[in-house]
């Protein structure tokens, strides 16, 4: 009798074997309190180190938006989109959530090796924890965003409630991105150097500070492709809920839902496939 048979006969299980996908997700769900508590503590610790503490959570995107507003607002001149400040703030705030989630997902496994090497738990919780941390930062930003809408004279309507499903879909989409980047950086550490460029490129092609329809009106192919750009879709949907002069189409909703669940599913499977590799020596 081989040792493997002997072990199995005595009810021993193979250690380190990747669990089945559903077991894995169930195990992660059981420890959701860990992911939540870790993200809460991490954001508290991150805020405690600066004098202005948690205010930076809203200050950083506001300053970013103001800088872009100043530069592009002047550059674009009369071709500025309508209601430029609410338009720009919506784009910058939402995109900063998606991009920081993607970026912090990249460090979720590689930056917590001490934890990965000393405790065994579904590693998926690490990128998820990084995402939750960004959600904590997003909520005050959304409050500030609605304030800017009001200040710049956007009428308050029931349509604003549509922001809730839009933000949820965007969070699901970003969680998928965080899972993907978490695994990619484990394979290729160099990727962390490229992420800022990637984030910048997507920023420029997603209509964060300019009106896609206006700029690309002479390039129908490019515009047709942009209609599928998930970031453009989430930002446009959010703008259409409250900023005068912007509308949503059913297609945008279908695409937003498809991107959210598609990216999340791909992210979970992609991350889970390498579960055995996390924490190895390199």
């Amino acid at each position, binding site marked *: 009798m081989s040792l493997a048979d002997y*072990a199995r006969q005595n009810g*021993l299980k193979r*250690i*380190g074997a990747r669990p089945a996908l559903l077991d894995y997700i169930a195990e992660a769900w059981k420890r959701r309190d860990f992911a939540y*508590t*870790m993200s809460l503590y*991490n954001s508290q610790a991150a805020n405690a180190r600066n004098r202005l503490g948690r205010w930076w959570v809203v200050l950083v995107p506001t300053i970013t938006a103001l800088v872009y507003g100043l530069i592009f607002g002047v550059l674009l001149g009369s071709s500025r989109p309508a209601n430029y400040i609410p338009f720009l703030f919506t784009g910058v705030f939402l995109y900063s959530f998606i991009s920081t989630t993607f970026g912090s997902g990249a460090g979720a496994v590689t930056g917590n090796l001490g934890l990965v090497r000393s*405790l*065994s738990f579904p590693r998926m919780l690490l990128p998820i924890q990084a995402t939750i941390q960004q959600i904590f930062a997003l909520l005050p930003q959304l409050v500030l965003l609605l304030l800017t809408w009001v200040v710049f004279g956007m009428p308050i309507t029931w349509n604003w409630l549509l922001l809730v499903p839009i933000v949820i879909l965007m969070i699901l989409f970003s969680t998928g991105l965080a899972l993907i980047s978490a695994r990619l950086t484990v394979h290729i550490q160099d990727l962390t150097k490229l992420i800022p460029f990637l984030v910048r490129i997507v920023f420029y092609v997603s209509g964060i500070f300019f009106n896609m329809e206006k700029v690309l009106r002479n390039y129908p192919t490019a515009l047709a492709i942009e209609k599928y750009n998930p970031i453009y879709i989430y930002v446009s949907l959010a703008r259409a809920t409250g900023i005068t002069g912007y509308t949503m189409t059913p297609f945008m909703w279908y695409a937003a839902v498809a991107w959210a669940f598609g990216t999340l599913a791909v992210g979970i499977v992609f991350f889970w496939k390498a579960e055995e590799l996390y924490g190895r*020596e390199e």
Partner: protein
Amino acid sequence: MAEKSNETRRPVVVVDGVHIIYKVFASGRRATKGASVGSRKFSRRLGLREVHAVKGLTFTVYEGESIGIIGSNGSGKSSLMRAIAGLSPIQGGAVYASAKPALLGVGAVLLPNLSGEKNILLGGLAMGFARKEMVENTDAITKFAGLEDFIELPMRTYSSGMSARLRFAIAASRDHEILIIDEALAVGDQEFRNRSEARMREMRDNAGTVFLVSHSMKSILDTCTRVIWIEKGELIMDGEPQAVVDAYNKHTGSTTID
């Protein structure tokens, strides 16, 4: 918990021909002989080196045993322990166990920016314990680690001895079926060592299996019922603690037992 079989001893951990190979980017100047200047430069930069840390180890551990693992530095002890705990991947063979082993290593920092208290809670939650249970145990864990005055400070401010004590206290707060302690006690002071050795014996008596990696032959002899000696990733000797330790001491040329 587990019933004692009368006829045969119940195996708890089966290590079956385990190989561990690390692929490391070597950055040193280990120029290949006879190569041309250009290719040497290239190979130095992309010097992917394989380190065969564990070479086909096989052994079986039974219920209620506590195993001492000895060997010189770099012999593959820690690699093997991490593989048993399922924390680092193996390239050949397999490890089977009756429960997921909990590993307590010396290099492991949990979350350096968080206080000891928060690390206690998070460590427990990650191991799958309920929040209520961990909150109730926090004081006992702090007391066991002897860190009452420092538990509010971030863990990065702890000395290595203090953080090792805290990690041990977290892991030992609950009975584990299989607990692996990798030199985690070496940095503690004598008083803490006595306390933790007592706790290890207690866990072993509760039908738990303990692996202890240590360079202190005294700790090994005091707590273990069986000793495995590994050298260069291969098994040299496996048996009665006194016999293995004597052989090891003879090999290393040391006469004292600590």
